[in-house]
C-alpha cells in the first residue's frame, strides 16, 4: 500500500494512463471489468461472492417490490448490485432452430431471420459496480489521501487512513462510494486488490456463471466489447450500446464499463457523467475573485463616506 495518493500533475486530467499519472513507475497493464448485461441472468452470484470474499457486512434484508432487486443500490455494504428492470417492450432472442432468412416478420430491426422479437415484455438485468474512473472524483477530493490509485489503475480506500469526512460520497458522479452506518468510514469495490496482487481475478468475475462479468486488461476488454456490440447489432439487437468505454468521456473512460440494452438512466446510471474536479480551476478563479471583491467591499465601506465620529 505504498501507492502515491495524488495525481502527478495535480489533477492528472490529461492522462489516459492513471497508474503512471499517479506516479507508479513501470506499472502492470491497467485492468478492469467489461459487464455484458445482455447475458446477465440476474443470479446475484457476483453479489454473494463479493460479500463473502471481502467480508462485507449484511445491510438489511428488505423486500422492496422492485422486481427481484432487494439490494436496491450500490453502497458501503453492496459493492456489486444487480439491477432488475421490467419493461413493456418485445424481447429479442435468437431462434437457433429456425432456418436463416425465416421469420423476420417484417420487423426492419431484425436483419437476421433467426432473431425473433417476441411478446410485449422484457426483463433487463445488469450487475453494477464501481467504475474505477480514469479521472476519479472520489480520489481527487479525498482530503486525507485514504483513496489512492493502485498500480493496476484501480481506485481503493485505505481503511486505516479514512477519517469519515464523507466528501467522496457526493463527489462520485455514479453514486457508488458511501459511508457505512455505525462505522463512519467509506467503503466501495476494490476490484479485489488483494486477489489482483496474487494474480487472481476478482471474486465477482470468478463467480459469474455466464461471463456477463469479464475481467481483464482494459485495452483487450474494449476490443472484445466493440466486437460484441457489432455481433448484437448484426443480430438485430439495435439498442445494444457500450457505456463508459470511451476515453474521451467526462471521466476519461471507466475502468469498469458496460454493454447496456437501454438508456443509462434506465439502469440508474448517469447519461453523461463528468469528474467534478475538471471544473476546479475555474471554481478557484471565481473564489479568488469573490475574495478580492470581499476585501474591496470592506475597504470601500471603511474608507468612503462619513468619517469616524470621535
Amino acid at each position, binding site marked *: 500500500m505504498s501507492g502515491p495518493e495524488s495525481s502527478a500533475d495535480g489533477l492528472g486530467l490529461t492522462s489516459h494512463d492513471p497508474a503512471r499519472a499517479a506516479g507508479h513507475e513501470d506499472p502492470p497493464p491497467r485492468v478492469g471489468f467489461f459487464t455484458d448485461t445482455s447475458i446477465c441472468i440476474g443470479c446475484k452470484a457476483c453479489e454473494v461472492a463479493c460479500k463473502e470474499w471481502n467480508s462485507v457486512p449484511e445491510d438489511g434484508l428488505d423486500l422492496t417490490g422492485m422486481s427481484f432487486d432487494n439490494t436496491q443500490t450500490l453502497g458501503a455494504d453492496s459493492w456489486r448490485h444487480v439491477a432488475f428492470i421490467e419493461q413493456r417492450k418485445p424481447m429479442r432472442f435468437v431462434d437457433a432452430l429456425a432456418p436463416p432468412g425465416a421469420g423476420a416478420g417484417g420487423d426492419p430491426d431484425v436483419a437476421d431471420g433467426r432473431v425473433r422479437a417476441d411478446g410485449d415484455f422484457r426483463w433487463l438485468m445488469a450487475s453494477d459496480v464501481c467504475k474505477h474512473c480514469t479521472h476519479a472524483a472520489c480520489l481527487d477530493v479525498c482530503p486525507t489521501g485514504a483513496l489512492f490509485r493502485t498500480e493496476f489503475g484501480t481506485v481503493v480506500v485505505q481503511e486505516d487512513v479514512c*477519517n469519515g469526512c*464523507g466528501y467522496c460520497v457526493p463527489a462520485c458522479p455514479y453514486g457508488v462510494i458511501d459511508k457505512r452506518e455505525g462505522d463512519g468510514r467509506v467503503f466501495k469495490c476494490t476490484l479485489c486488490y488483494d486477489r489482483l496482487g496474487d494474480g487472481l481475478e476478482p471474486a465477482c468475475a470468478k463467480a459469474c456463471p455466464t461471463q456477463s462479468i469479464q475481467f481483464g486488461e482494459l485495452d483487450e476488454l474494449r476490443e472484445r466489447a466493440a466486437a460484441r456490440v457489432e455481433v448484437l447489432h448484426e443480430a438485430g439487437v439495435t439498442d445494444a450500446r457500450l457505456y463508459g468505454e470511451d476515453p474521451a468521456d467526462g471521466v476519461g473512460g471507466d475502468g469498469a464499463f458496460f454493454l447496456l440494452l437501454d438508456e443509462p438512466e434506465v439502469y440508474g446510471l448517469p447519461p453523461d457523467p463528468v469528474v467534478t474536479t475538471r471544473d476546479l480551476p475555474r*471554481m478557484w478563479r471565481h473564489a479568488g475573485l469573490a475574495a478580492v*471583491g470581499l476585501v474591496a467591499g470592506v475597504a470601500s465601506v471603511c474608507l468612503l463616506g462619513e468619517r469616524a465620529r470621535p
Partner: protein
Amino acid sequence: MTGTRSEPRFDSYYGRPIINPPVWEALDIAGYFFLGGLAGASSVLGAGAQATGRPALARTAKAGALGAIGVSFVALVHDLGRPARFVNMLRVFKPSSPMNLGTWLLSAYAPAAGVAAASAVFGRVPRAGAAATASAAVLGPAVATYTAVLLADTAVPAWHDGHRELPYLFAASAAAAAAGLGLIGAPTAQAAPARRLAALATGAELVAVELLKHRVEEVAETYEEDRAGRLMRAAQVLGIAGAGGALTAGRHHRVAAAASGVALLAASAATRFGVFAAGMRSAEDPRYTVGPQRRRREARA
C-alpha cells in the same frame, strides 16, 4: 393531463437517486459555512475598522471571528465519521481537494484570529496583534469563499452547476454576517462601515442568487421549493430588513442597530442552510442529474 405543466420525459431506476446524497449533517456543515463566513469576513472588517480608527468595531469583529472559528472547529470535527482522525487531513497537501486545502487554511487562520482577538480585547502585545490582524485579514476572505468551492466540487447538481456563482454568493453572505455582528457589538458612532457593508452585501447577495438560479436552469426549483425555498426567501426578507433597518433607525438607535444586526446574521445563516437544503434535494431526485446531462449529451451529438 390538462392544466399541468409538461415535464421532460425521462426514465429512472425506480425513482432512486443517481448520485449518493451527501452524508453531512446540516447543522454541522451549513452551520460551519455560516460561522466560517462570519469569521473570515469579520477579520477583514476588523482590520478595516482598526485602520480607520474605530476600535470598538474592530474589537467586536476580531472577538467574533475567534468565537465563530472556534465553534466551527467543533462542528467540523463532530461531523467526521472518525473524529479522532481529524489530523489525517494534515498528513498530505493535496491541491485537488478543497477540503484538504481548507484544513490547511483554517490551521493558519485560526491562530492569527486568536492572537488578533486576544490583543484587541486585552490591549496587550500590540505589535503581534497588528501582525495577526493583518494575517487574519489576508486569510479571512479565503476562509469565507473556499467553502463555496468545497460544495461546488461535487456531483450535486444544485452546487456543481452553480460553481461560477456560488463563491460570490458565499462572499456576500459572509459580509452580511460580519456587518450584522458589527452592528450588534459596536456603538452607532463607529458602526458606519457595518451599516454600509450591510447594504452592499445584501444587494450583492440578491444579485448572486438570481444569477445562480438562472445558470442552473430547472435545478433552480430546488432553490425555490420546499425547505430550501422557505430558507432562501427568509434570507431575502431578513437581509433586506436588516440592511434597511441599519441604514435608517440603526444610524442613531443602538437597539435598532442591534436588531438589524440580528436580522443580518439570521439572513446569512438562512442562505447557507438554504443552499445546503437545495443541494440535498437536487441529489435525491434523479431528474436533476439526468435532465441536464441528457441535454448536454444531445447538444454534443
